C-alpha cells in the first residue's frame, strides 16, 4: 500500500515538473501563436543560472529560493530581448518562419551555453530544509517531491488568478480569442505580446531552476525536454493552462505505473498517450476548435504559377550542369550532390504537403526513414535485389502514409502537425525496440547497391534520374486538376465544401503521395550510405526537412531544392569549425530576418522579372 501511494506521489511530482515547463509554452502559444521550439533552451539556461547563483549568493538557506526566482527573472528578460529583437520582426511574415527563427535560437543558445557554462554535467544542489525523505507506510518519499507538487499547484493557481482576476489577464484572454478585434479596440498588442513572452520565458526558467534538486544541468536538457513539453501542451489543448496541468498529470501517472507493467514502455508512452487523446479529441482535452490553425495568408503570397519559358530554359541549363557534373567534379562533390538530390526529393514531398496541401508535418522523417527501413529490411531479410527494393519500399511507405494520414487529416493546424510527430515517434520506437527484426539502434548494415550500380558515376545518374524525376512529377502535380483542388482546399475549406469536393479525401491522398515520394528518397538514401539507423526516423531528422523547406521558402516551387542544397552545403562548409552550431543558428536567424520569404522567395522577388514571360510589375 505504501508503495502504491509513493508511486502515485512520484508520478504526481514528475507531472508537476512537466507542467512547469509546459505552462509557459502554452501561454505563449495561446496569445501569440508562436510555436516556440526554443522554450527548452530557456529551461536549460534557467537551470544553469540557478546552479551558479546558488553557489554565489550569500544568503544562507534563503539563497536557494532567491536564486531560483532570480534566474527565472533573468530568463524572462532574455525572453524579452528575443521577442523584441527577433520575433517582433517576424509577426508579419508567414507564421512558419517563426519556427525557423526559434530553431536558430536553439542552436545559438546551445553553443553559447557550452561556452558560458562549460560542458561538464552538473549535479543540482539539494534544497536546504527539504533534503530528506518522509516515511509513508514504510516507503520513503523525498520531501522535495512533495514541495514540487505544491509549487506546481501554486503556480497553476497564480496563473489562473492572473488570467481571470486582473485587467492584464482579461486582455490576454481577449487576445487568445480574437486578436484583430482587440487591436481594433486600441489595445497595445505589441506590449501585450512582449509581456506574455516575458511571463512564458520566466516560467521556463523557473521550471529549469526548480528541477535542480531532482537532477541537474546539462547541455542535452533543451532538446530532451522540449518534445515532452509540446506533448503536454497539445494534449491539454493549446493555450489552456488547466488542460496542460491535467495532461501532465495523465502522462506523469501513466508513466509511473506503466513502468511497473512494461518497463520497456519508457520510449513511447508519452507519444502513445498523445496519439490516443488527439484521435478521440482532435483539439486536446481543453482546446477549442480552430484555435491552433495556421491560417494560410493570402495577402503575402501570389498563387504559384507554372514556370515561364525563360525559367524552363534556366532549369534545363541547371539540369545539364547537374548531369555533366561527373565530368569535372571530384568524387566527394558527387557524394554531396547525391545527398542533396535525395534530401531535395524528400523536402519537395514535405513541401507538397505544406505548401499546396496546407498541412504542416513535424514527423516527415517517418516516411523518409520508413522508406530507408523498408528497403533495408527487404534486402536484409529477403535478399531482395536493389531494383525491386527501390520499387516496393516507396509503395510500402505509401501504405503507411495512408494509415497515418487517415488519422491525421481529421485534424488541422498544429494539432495535425503534432499527431504526425506522435506517429513518427511511435514508428521510431518500434524500429528502435524491435531489435530482432530491425536491428534496433545497431541498425541494418551492408545494404549496398547492385553490382551494376555500385560504380559511383552510375549510382550518381541513377539517383539523379529518380530524384529529379520525382521532383518534376511533384511539381507537375501542383498544376494538375488535383493540385488546383488541393490548393482550393487549403485556401477555403468552406467554398470547397459547398461545391461538393471531398476535402478530407484530397488531403488523405496527399499524405499517401508525399509518403510515397519521401519513401523513394529514403530507399535511395539507404543504398547511398550502405546502412540505416533509427536516427533517420527521429525527431531531429523531421526538423531537418522542415528547416530545408523553410530555408528555401514556402512560396516558391523551387524552394525545397534550393533549401536542401543550401542546408547541406552550409552544414558541410562550417562543420569543420568549432562552435559551428552558433554560426549555423546565427545564419538561420539572419536569414529569417533578412529574407522572410526564404531564399527562393527572395530570388523570385529580386530576379523574378527577368524570368517572367511578360515584363511588368508582378501581382
Amino acid at each position, binding site marked *: 500500500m505504501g*508503495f502504491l501511494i509513493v508511486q502515485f506521489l512520484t508520478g504526481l511530482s514528475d507531472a508537476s515538473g512537466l507542467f512547469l515547463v509546459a505552462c509557459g509554452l502554452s501561454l505563449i502559444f495561446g496569445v501569440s501563436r508562436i510555436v516556440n521550439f526554443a522554450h527548452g533552451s530557456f529551461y536549460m539556461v534557467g537551470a544553469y543560472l540557478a546552479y551558479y547563483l546558488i553557489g554565489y549568493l550569500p544568503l544562507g538557506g534563503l539563497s536557494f529560493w532567491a536564486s531560483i526566482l532570480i534566474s527565472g527573472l533573468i530568463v524572462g528578460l532574455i525572453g524579452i530581448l528575443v521577442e523584441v529583437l527577433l520575433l517582433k520582426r517576424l509577426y508579419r511574415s508567414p507564421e512558419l518562419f517563426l519556427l525557423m527563427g526559434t530553431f536558430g535560437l536553439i542552436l545559438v543558445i546551445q553553443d553559447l551555453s557550452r561556452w558560458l557554462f562549460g560542458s561538464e554535467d552538473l549535479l543540482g544542489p539539494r534544497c536546504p530544509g527539504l533534503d530528506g525523505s518522509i516515511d509513508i507506510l514504510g516507503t520513503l518519499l523525498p520531501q522535495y517531491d512533495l514541495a514540487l507538487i505544491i509549487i506546481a499547484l501554486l503556480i497553476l493557481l497564480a496563473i489562473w488568478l492572473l488570467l481571470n482576476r486582473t485587467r492584464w489577464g482579461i486582455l490576454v484572454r481577449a487576445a487568445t480569442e480574437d486578436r484583430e478585434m482587440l487591436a481594433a479596440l486600441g489595445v497595445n498588442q505589441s506590449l501585450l505580446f512582449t509581456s506574455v513572452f516575458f511571463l512564458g520565458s520566466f516560467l521556463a526558467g523557473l521550471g529549469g531552476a526548480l528541477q535542480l534538486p531532482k537532477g541537474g544541468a546539462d547541455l542535452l536538457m533543451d532538446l530532451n525536454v522540449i518534445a515532452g513539453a509540446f506533448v503536454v501542451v497539445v494534449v491539454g489543448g493549446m493555450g489552456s493552462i488547466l488542460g496542460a496541468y491535467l495532461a501532465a498529470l495523465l502522462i506523469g501517472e501513466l508513466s509511473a505505473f506503466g513502468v511497473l507493467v512494461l518497463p520497456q514502455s519508457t520510449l513511447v508512452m508519452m507519444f502513445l498517450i498523445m496519439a490516443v487523446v488527439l484521435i478521440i479529441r482532435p483539439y486536446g482535452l481543453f482546446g477549442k476548435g480552430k484555435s491552433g490553425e495556421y491560417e494560410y495568408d493570402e495577402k503575402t503570397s501570389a498563387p504559384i504559377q507554372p514556370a515561364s519559358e525563360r525559367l524552363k530554359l534556366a532549369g534545363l541549363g541547371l539540369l545539364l550542369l547537374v548531369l555533366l557534373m561527373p565530368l569535372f567534379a571530384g568524387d*566527394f562533390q558527387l557524394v554531396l550532390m547525391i545527398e542533396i538530390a535525395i534530401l531535395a526529393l524528400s523536402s519537395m514531398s514535405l513541401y507538397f504537403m505544406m505548401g499546396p496541401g496546407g498541412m504542416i508535418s513535424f514527423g516527415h522523417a517517418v516516411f523518409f526513414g520508413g522508406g530507408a527501413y523498408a528497403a533495408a529490411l527487404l534486402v536484409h531479410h529477403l535478399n531482395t535485389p536493389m531494383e525491386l527494393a527501390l520499387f516496393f519500399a516507396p509503395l510500402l511507405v505509401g501504405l503507411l502514409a495512408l494509415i497515418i494520414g487517415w488519422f491525421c487529416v481529421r485534424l488541422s493546424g498544429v494539432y495535425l502537425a503534432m499527431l504526425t510527430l506522435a506517429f513518427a515517434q511511435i514508428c521510431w520506437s518500434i524500429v528502435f525496440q524491435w531489435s530482432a527484426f530491425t536491428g534496433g539502434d545497431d541498425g541494418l548494415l551492408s545494404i549496398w547497391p547492385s553490382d551494376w550500380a555500385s560504380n559511383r558515376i552510375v549510382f550518381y545518374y541513377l539517383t539523379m534520374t529518380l530524384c529529379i524525376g520525382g521532383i518534376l512529377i511533384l511539381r507537375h502535380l501542383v498544376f494538375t486538376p488535383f493540385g488546383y483542388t488541393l490548393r482550393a482546399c487549403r485556401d477555403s475549406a468552406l467554398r470547397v465544401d459547398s461545391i461538393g469536393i471531398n476535402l478530407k479525401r484530397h488531403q488523405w491522398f496527399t499524405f499517401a503521395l508525399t509518403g510515397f515520394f519521401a519513401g523513394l528518397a529514403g530507399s535511395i538514401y539507404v543504398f547511398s550510405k550502405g546502412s540505416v539507423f533509427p*536516427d533517420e526516423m527521429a525527431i531531429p531528422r523531421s526538423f531537418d526537412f522542415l528547416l530545408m523547406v523553410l530555408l528555401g521558402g514556402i512560396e516558391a516551387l523551387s524552394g525545397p531544392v534550393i533549401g536542401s542544397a543550401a542546408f547541406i552545403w552550409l552544414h558541410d562548409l562550417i562543420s569543420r569549425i568549432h562552435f559551428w552550431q552558433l554560426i549555423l543558428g546565427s545564419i538561420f536567424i539572419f536569414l529569417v530576418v533578412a529574407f522572410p520569404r526564404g531564399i527562393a522567395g527572395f530570388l523570385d522577388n529580386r530576379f523574378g522579372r527577368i524570368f517572367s514571360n511578360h515584363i511588368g510589375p508582378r501581382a
Partner: protein
Amino acid sequence: MRFVRRLVVFFTLILFLPFFYPAFSDAADTIKIGEINTYSKLTNFTFPYRNGWQLALEEINTAGGVNGKKLEVISRDDDGKPGQAVKIAEELVRKDKVILLMGSFFSHVGLALTDFAKRNKVLYIAAEPLSDALVWAKGNRYTFRLRPSTYMQAAMLAEKAAENPARRWATIAPNYAYGKDAVKSFKKILKAKRPDVEFVAEQWPALFKINAGSEIQSLANSKPEAIYNVTFGGDLAKFVREGNLRGIFKDVFVVSLLTGEPEYLDPLKKEAPEGWLVTGYPWYDIKTPAHDKFLAAYQNKFDATPRNGSVVGYNVMMTVAHMLKKSGSTDTEKMVDAMEGLAFESPIGPVTYRKIDHQSTMGAYVGYTAQKEGKGIMVEWQYMDGKDYLPGDEEVRKLRGK
C-alpha cells in the same frame, strides 16, 4: 538592408565556388589521418579524448614522426549521427586523402563506419564505441577496436560480483543496444558462475530521460539484494540521488558499469556512492612509471586531470604510430596486416590487437567506489587485462560467422 542583401548574395556565391573545383591534393610530406567524433554534443567525453590524441600526436611528431614523415590529423565532428559520419568519412577519404579513419563515440556511429570501412576497403580503428557487434557479428577485415567492449567490462564485473553472496538481482539500463548488451552479457556470465542467482526486476529508462523516482521505486518494490546499473551521465546522477533519498541502496550491493570513470564519477562530487563495484579509471592512484610519465605530460599540456577518454585517445593515436612503424607503408592491406597482432606498451599496460577478432586487449580497472575529500574515487582496484575476459577462439569464430 538592400546593401546587406547584396552582400549576402555576393558572399553566398563566393562560398559556393569551391564546390565546383575538384579537390586538389597536397604534396605528400605528411601522413594524413582522418579522425571523427561527436565534438558538438558530448563534449564532456569527447574533449578529454581529443586532448589524449593531441598529446600523443605531439609526442610522435616531436620525436620525428613515423618513417621520416610527420603525422597530421584531420579531425571532424559527426554530430552524433551515423549518416553524417559516413558522409564525413567519404570526404576524408576522397577529398582529404587520409590513409585511415579513427575515432567515434556512439556505437551506432561506429557500426556505420565499420560498414563503410568494409565496403571501401579503408582501415578504421574504432576508439570509444563499446558495441559487441563492432568486432563480432558485424566485424570485418578493415575494422579494429581499442576500448574494452561491453562484453569485456560486463564480464569483469560479473566475475567480481559472483563473489558477493547476493542472490536476488535487479537491473536498470538505458533502453538501447548498449544497455541491452550490457545486461545480457552480465546475466549470462553471472548465471554461469552462480546458478543460484535470480533476476527479479528490470527497468529500461529512455537514454537521458530517466524518470528516476518511479523507476527506482519499482526496482525496490521487488526487494532485490543487489542491483546492476548501466545508466550513466545525467541519468546516473538522478539514479544516485533518488536512490539515496528513497533509501534504496541501504543494504543493497550495487554493481555499476563505467561509474568509476572520472567522466561519470566526478560530477557526483560528495554524493558519489560508496562501496559500489565499478569499472573505471583511478588515475590518481596508478603508480607505474609509464602512467606517471603520461599523467605528468597530460597535466603539463592541458592543466587538467585526465579522464578515461584521454587514455583512449592517447592509445588510439599511439596505435596508429606503432602500426605505421610496423607496416612501413600506407597501403591499406599492408596496414591491416600490421594491425593484426600489433602489440605495444600503453600507459596503463600492454595492448595487443587480436588477430582473430580485431579487438584490442586493453583492459579496465575494477574496484569499489569511496569518498575522499568530497569527491568520489575508486579504492581496492585492480587492473584487469582485457585478454582474460574475451570468449575462447571457438566462440569468437562462431560470433564472427566464419
